[in-house]
């Protein structure tokens, strides 16, 4: 991970997205240069995954916190965005209710639950995209890091967290559409979601957010804070005896990462057109971890690369050989951990990647 790689990645992501968007909008349908709209949405989706991967790498690669529940933050951000998009439908739903989303009419609800208020305002919704995952991470992290829950224990309770949220969001009376989630969105900030221009715009916005997140993450890990964080990752108790409070360092990076994941989720929902509880499933979180592992843990750029490569591979394989996908994903987990522990980026480095030594006296 160095300045050059980050710079290159930022340029590639933003440049690539702008090019795709331009080719989609400014070429004729039959032209060999034409990029079909579904590719625009697909790439937009990958870039959202890349934001999630970046968030995972920030905590795992640099803080040593293996989160098996980051998809929860992603999904919460997504739900906040989904609620805004639902309110935007206003009256154009199947039941034509001016305020209530269709699923509430269907459940025979008479009025909007209190926590749905305000989501018709894009600024409020945007605030919630940041605040909900951030607050959950703050509370969870404060409890976990202060009581020094770490390593595998932390991983398992993050998984339990997302599992509990999965169960909760499946419930109809939670007021988030239950099993079906939120869907049938019409427009975002008054731009129709089905329009090519809106999709191209979302792609460029996503790419910019990803680029910004990458630069932010780089700034964090390259600062003195980042050095302390790496020190905490590899020798937590040593940093304590030096007078640092590892829990505060972990908590900060954990909350930043959760917010990043939440924003990724918020950008994801308008591009795929649906958010439902399955986004909370533990498997999603673990898949995000494998993106990072494939690309190279603790390299930031590797997380972006891994997310795009693995989810691209998934799209191709589930289309071509659906039976094979889980075999391939499972094998990927095993092979990467056994033979490529530093990931793709790590394999190209001269010096071996800084794998954490186990804490003394395991």
């Amino acid at each position, binding site marked *: 991970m160095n300045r050059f790689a980050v710079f290159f990645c930022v340029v590639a992501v933003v440049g690539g997205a702008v090019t795709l968007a331009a080719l989609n909008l400014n070429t004729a349908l039959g032209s060999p240069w034409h990029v079909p709209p579904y590719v625009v949405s697909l790439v937009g989706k990958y870039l959202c995954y890349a934001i999630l991967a970046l968030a995972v790498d920030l905590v795992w690669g640099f803080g040593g916190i293996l989160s098996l529940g980051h998809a929860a933050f992603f999904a919460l951000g997504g739900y906040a965005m989904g609620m805004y998009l639902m309110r935007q439908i206003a009256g154009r739903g199947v039941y034509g209710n001016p305020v209530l989303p269709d699923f509430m009419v269907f459940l025979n609800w008479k009025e909007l639950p209190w926590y749905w208020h305000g989501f018709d305002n894009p600024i409020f919704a945007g605030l919630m995209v940041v605040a909900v995952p951030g607050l959950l991470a703050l509370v969870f992290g404060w409890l976990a890091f202060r009581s020094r829950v770490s390593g595998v224990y932390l991983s398992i309770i993050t998984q339990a967290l997302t599992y509990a949220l999965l169960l909760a969001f499946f419930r109809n009376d939670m007021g988030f559409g239950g099993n079906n989630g939120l869907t049938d969105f019409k427009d975002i900030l008054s731009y129709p979601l089905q329009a090519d221009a809106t999709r191209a715009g979302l792609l460029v916005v996503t790419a910019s957010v990803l680029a910004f997140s990458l630069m932010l993450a780089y700034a964090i890990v390259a600062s003195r804070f980042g050095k302390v964080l790496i020190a905490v990752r590899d020798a937590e108790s040593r940093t304590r005896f030096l007078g640092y409070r590892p829990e505060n360092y972990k908590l900060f990076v954990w909350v930043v990462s959760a917010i990043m994941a939440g924003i990724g989720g918020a950008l994801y929902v308008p591009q795929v057109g649906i958010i439902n509880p399955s986004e909370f499933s533990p498997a999603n979180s673990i898949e995000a971890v494998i993106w990072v592992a494939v690309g190279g843990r603790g390299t930031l750029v590797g997380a972006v690369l891994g997310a795009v490569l693995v989810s691209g591979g998934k799209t191709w394989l589930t289309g071509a050989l659906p039976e094979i996908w889980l075999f391939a994903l499972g094998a*990927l987990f095993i092979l990467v951990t056994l033979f490529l522990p530093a990931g793709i980026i790590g394999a190209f480095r001269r010096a071996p990647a800084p794998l954490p030594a186990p804490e003394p006296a395991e």
Partner: protein
Amino acid sequence: MTFFRCLLVLLVMFVAPPAPAQDDPFAGLASGNFDDVSAAIAALALSGNPQAAATIGALQTDALFAGPEAAVYIRTDDGWVDARTGQKAEGVNEDDLNPVRVNNAVRRAIDAALGSLNLFSSSATVRAKAAEDVFRSRDPAALPALARAIAKENDAGVRSVMVQARAAARLADPASSDTDKLEDIAVIRARGDIEALGLLSSLHDQPAEVATAAAAAIASIKRSEQLWSVAQSVFYGLSLGSVLLLAAAGLAITFGVMGVINMAHGEMVMLGAYTTFVVQETIGAHAPALSGWSLPIAVPLAFLVSGAVGIAIERGLIRFLYGRPLETLLATWGLSLVLQQAVRSLFGASNREVSTPAWMSGAAQWGGLTITWNRLTIIIFAVMVVAALMAALRYTALGLRMRAVTQNRRMAAAMGIRTPWIDALTFGLGSGVAGMAGVALSQIDNVSPNLGQGYIIDSFMVVVFGGVGNLWGTVVSAFTLGIVNKFLEPVAGAVLGKILVLVLLILFIQRRPRGLFPLKGRAVEA
């Protein structure tokens, strides 16, 4: 209407009604008048006439016909039968016969009469059932029959049901005396089930004294019902706890003792369940006589299958990752995906049917407690598995070596123990126990490739809650979590209850990261 009918019946029996019905109830049946028919049915039922049951039964199926001169015939598949004698009737001219018609009132009289007839059946079960029917119908019309039946009854159990039935009927009868009613309420209070509660709650227009007694009885029944429902919740909790224990016992070895994070643990359980399926299919195809034994046969096989897969996993994957718990977690998760897909490719994605053997079906009722045999079997099985596991660790040579290796690997190696093999066997043991859990879970869960996924988080929670490396802790933790879960369910609903338990557990782990029963010492302090 009911009141009129009661009055009528009473009239029929005690106030010396007009002659024909009493002398010869059969003539009443032939009268063509609905009221007379009803009265005749009641009289016939009480008469003790051996033909009564057959005649009233025929009436119920519209097979009773009236002929000239009050003759009554039953139509059977073999021809006509004289209702009075039960003998075959010759030379009956069908044109002279009219069916005995019934209306609603008659139909009720038939039901009541058949009920009271059954009170005198030779079978105790039928008598008890008849009394129970009266208890439900609370029909005062049955009182006379009940009185005679109680007097004749020798079986104490049946008799008490009859007394309860009489109590129910008397309470519904405005003519009963208060003294009787108070006695009846005591009887019904003693019965104390949901029916008794329903009966007492439906009482109205009763004298003050009776109403008070009824209210007291209701309170008492409700209290005892609460106790029973607590007992029932405890049973369900034990049942859930035993499932958790089975799922977690293997993990207590692989994770608790060895410290290996095996995310494919659930798939070991799943393999055990599929082994059960294969055993059942094989026995069904080749040795149907053994079909009741398929579960006991599947237990050791599941242990071997999952154990062998476990050893293969340890040798092929996990041993390269010792000391790297997070990598182990990821690699075994990958493995779990592969195993799931492999099973899906082999057996299909849909659920497989594993049948429950006869000796595990059904339930026992004990007071207000329903105990299903399959749940009870699983509780016992779980306890046996854990006991066997503890015994194996404590008393066998392998167990001794396992403990030696986990406590001090280098020392054990220095003493000539082949630690890599002990690692493999320990992991195999944990996986094998998971396989046995799969046999039990095939009885209560869908046997599908995803079976194991539902248990992995719960299992880890159980082991962590109980304290890593402590089998007793796992036992206590499994049953505690099971019972807490079942007590939360009625309050919060099943899903919310589960979420609450998860949240409580997350908070608990943060308070006490080493679980309920932490191991202490310098080693864990480091």
